[in-house]
């Protein structure tokens, strides 16, 4: 590995209204290295990438490229300076040929030189060992090849710094290997590669160094061989292992022995790999894992939110078909979605209208709920859940995040579900409301409702769940209960591997 420094970012600050997204972050990229940039949600890695590619302007700090101070004004400017990005969503045009995609937008002159382009494109593709022909329509190539064409374009634009943003999310194992070979080839040619991913295995397979960010701050930069997986996970999550072992014990949760309420075998969806899962009456369990490990995708499959591909589902011992959300609702399953703004609230409607939504859907449109009933329901839940709103007719969009979340909870509670799935119910809400929601979950469980709880905060899950299902790289890799329910064990299971 060469030690020549290619790119240096020093003390980068980036403020957004109300948030300090990056706080004095340093990042160094050397020539011919693959450098993984890691961090959980909100860690600031995408902000850092956007500052580097000119999408955002930094509020403080310095960037130097090959020893020269530079200021990057726009994505175009970044490309001209030799900083190229290949995104997860391929930013090429599927209706054009491979050659056109490699050259469009960066040539002068009114006429295009088709033959010349195609010859040059074939040379580049051949040189990099990319299995595509210049005259192919890009849309006819596999996603992996499309991504490689994007990389080839970047390489031909003399890129010195190549940023790969989650490049492997939609590729299969074989394609990932093809991409890695290309990355290693580029590395040997002296290109510095910033590799953003949430797949731990892949980080350890190709990277030379790892930089970890957390909450907009630099945690550290480590050579890959000096950072065991468990430590990486603990650094990303912000818990020191030593600190963890001395941390006070949580009250040990009793394992629930009631009847099984819901049981899935080999359940899979368009987004989730097949998995087995079950929950007992009155049990609170949770899916844990890093961002992108497949925890949300799994619960979405349970609710039928994505296209269900296979598997058998038993509810209360009877085999049933749950392929659409309405099926799940009819069987007493409620689901509070991860992204409350997109999948949860309807901001323009009032608190009352949002609360009665799910019940109305289940009743069907020919059995309207009378206005007085609606008002009674709304008032009841506003009181029970302590929703802070001016009145029941206030549009939900004007409520605080925590109160919006309570409104959605009320919506599901009103349907009296047997089984409630809560995906990140406490994200972005204040501590007080978080505790209220945790208490509510436990209370519901006492009343016999089963709850699956997902949270990025392990502690929160340990407080509420009596069983944790651990996922890594889209697979269930472990199940923890009883004594094993502690932070150290959770992190070790998430990290997996030998380390």
């Amino acid at each position, binding site marked *: 590995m060469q030690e020549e420094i290619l790119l240096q970012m020093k003390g980068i600050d980036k403020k957004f209204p109300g948030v300090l997204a990056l706080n004095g972050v340093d990042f160094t990229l050397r020539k011919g290295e693959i450098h993984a940039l890691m961090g959980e949600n909100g860690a600031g890695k995408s902000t850092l990438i956007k500052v580097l590619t000119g999408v955002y302007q930094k509020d403080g700090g310095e960037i130097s490229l090959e020893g020269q101070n530079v200021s990057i004004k726009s994505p175009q400017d970044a490309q001209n300076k030799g900083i190229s990005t290949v995104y997860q969503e391929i930013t090429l*045009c*599927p*209706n054009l040929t491979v050659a*056109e995609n490699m050259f469009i937008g960066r040539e002068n002159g009114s006429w*295009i030189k088709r033959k010349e382009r195609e010859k040059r494109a074939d040379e580049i593709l051949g040189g990099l060992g990319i299995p595509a022909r210049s005259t192919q329509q890009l849309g006819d190539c596999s996603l992996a090849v499309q991504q490689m064409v994007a990389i080839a374009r970047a390489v031909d634009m003399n890129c010195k710094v190549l940023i790969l943003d989650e490049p492997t999310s939609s590729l299969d194992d074989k394609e990932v290997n093809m991409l890695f070979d290309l990355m290693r080839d580029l590395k040997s040619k002296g290109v510095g590669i910033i590799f953003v991913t949430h797949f731990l295995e892949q980080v350890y397979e190709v990277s030379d160094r790892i930089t970890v960010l957390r909450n907009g701050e630099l945690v550290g930069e480590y050579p890959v061989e000096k950072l065991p997986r468990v430590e990486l996970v603990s650094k990303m999550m912000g818990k020191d292992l030593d600190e963890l072992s001395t941390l006070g014990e949580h009250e040990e949760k009793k394992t629930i022995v009631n009847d099984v309420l819901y049981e899935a075998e080999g359940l899979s969806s368009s987004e989730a790999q097949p998995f087995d899962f079950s929950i007992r009456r009155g049990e609170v369990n949770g899916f844990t894992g890093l961002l992108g490990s497949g925890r949300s995708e799994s619960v979405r499959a349970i609710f039928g939110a994505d296209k269900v591909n296979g598997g058998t589902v038993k509810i209360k011992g009877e085999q049933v078909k749950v392929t659409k959300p309405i099926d799940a609702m009819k069987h007493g399953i409620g689901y509070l979605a991860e992204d409350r703004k997109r999948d949860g609230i309807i901001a323009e409607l009032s608190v009352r209208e949002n609360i009665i939504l799910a019940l109305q859907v289940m009743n069907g449109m020919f059995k309207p709920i009378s206005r007085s009933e609606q008002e009674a329901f709304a008032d009841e839940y506003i009181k029970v859940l302590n929703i802070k709103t001016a009145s029941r007719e206030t549009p939900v969009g004007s409520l605080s995040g925590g109160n919006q979340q309570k409104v959605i909870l009320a919506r599901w509670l009103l349907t009296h579900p047997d089984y409630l799935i809560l995906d990140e119910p406490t994200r972005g809400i204040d501590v007080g409301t978080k505790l209220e929601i945790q208490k509510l979950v436990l209370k519901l469980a006492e009343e016999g409702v089963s709850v699956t709880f997902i949270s990025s905060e392990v502690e929160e899950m340990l407080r509420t769940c009596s069983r944790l299902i651990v996922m890594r790289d889209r697979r269930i890799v472990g199940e923890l209960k009883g004594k094993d329910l502690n932070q150290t064990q959770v992190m070790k299971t998430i990290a997996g591997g030998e380390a």
Partner: protein
Amino acid sequence: MKNPFGKRKEPLTDTQLLMTITIGIFVVMYILAMTLLGGGFLHAQQIFDMLNDNASLIIVSCGLTIVMIGGGIDISVGAVTSLVVMSCVLYLNNGGNVFVSILLALGIGLAFGLVQGFLISYLEIQPFIVTLAGMFFARGMTTILSVNPQKVDHAAFAKVRDTQIVIPWLGYTAKNGNLVPARIELGVIVALICVAFIFVLLKYLRLGRNFYAMGGNQTSALMLGINVKRTRFFSYILSGLLSGISGFVFMMHTGAGNATNAAGMEMNAIASSIIGGTLLTGGVGNVIGTFFGTMTLTTIKKIVVSSGLNDPWWQSITTGGMLCFFILLQSVVLGRRSKKKKS
């Protein structure tokens, strides 16, 4: 494209595939009409009549194809054509000059293109809304200019109008024994030049390829370094200009202005583009296909009339059916393709 029927190294692109289907269907349909209906279909003049009657439709369809490839829509084209016709007729009747009237036609088209293009590209207003407003505006202006039909009374213009290319050997002998030579109007030549010009633009010029990129994926086009706003602006300018040309050609064909001129032309132009293999979603299409799209549409109408279904609604019904058929065909063909790719 030197030898479209020879052995190709690559499978056809979506654009080429859809265009080939259209041309194939047109040829098959025409041959069927010749064998089953005979009559007019056996004479070359039938094709020339179709061209003479539809020269201006072909021209606006070219403009619409450009806009649709770029992922937009322009429904003002018919009304602008009508406004151009009425303006030029009145100008000529008030002692205007033919050359200046051509400039007037181009000017009106350009003005609509500039304003609509600016609103759509730089102020980012929905193209449907902007051009709908443009359509009402142009229709209203036409009626203000004259409620009554106006016939052109202008010697120099009459000369231009009556200029025809006569091809005796493609003619036929009428029932009374006279030889009727084949006639092609000047407007058809203009239309064919437009088709050729746009074809070259879309295939060989940077601007043309940028239209495809923009329609294929706007975000990508931006990331690839294309000035998307300017590219979109140009697509509407071209569409406006072609509407201007179309207006003049329309006037050369009819020799009169009428507030209801070119009514519904925008819809026929959209239909021609779609039948010709242009996708409403953008990124795929070709003017050669559009040309055959117009011809297919016209042939269908002729067949309907020749079959004795003279009532005007039969034409609408068959056009509607045809459009559905082509859209279905396109989605089936493209759907099969993407399935094959995945397996």
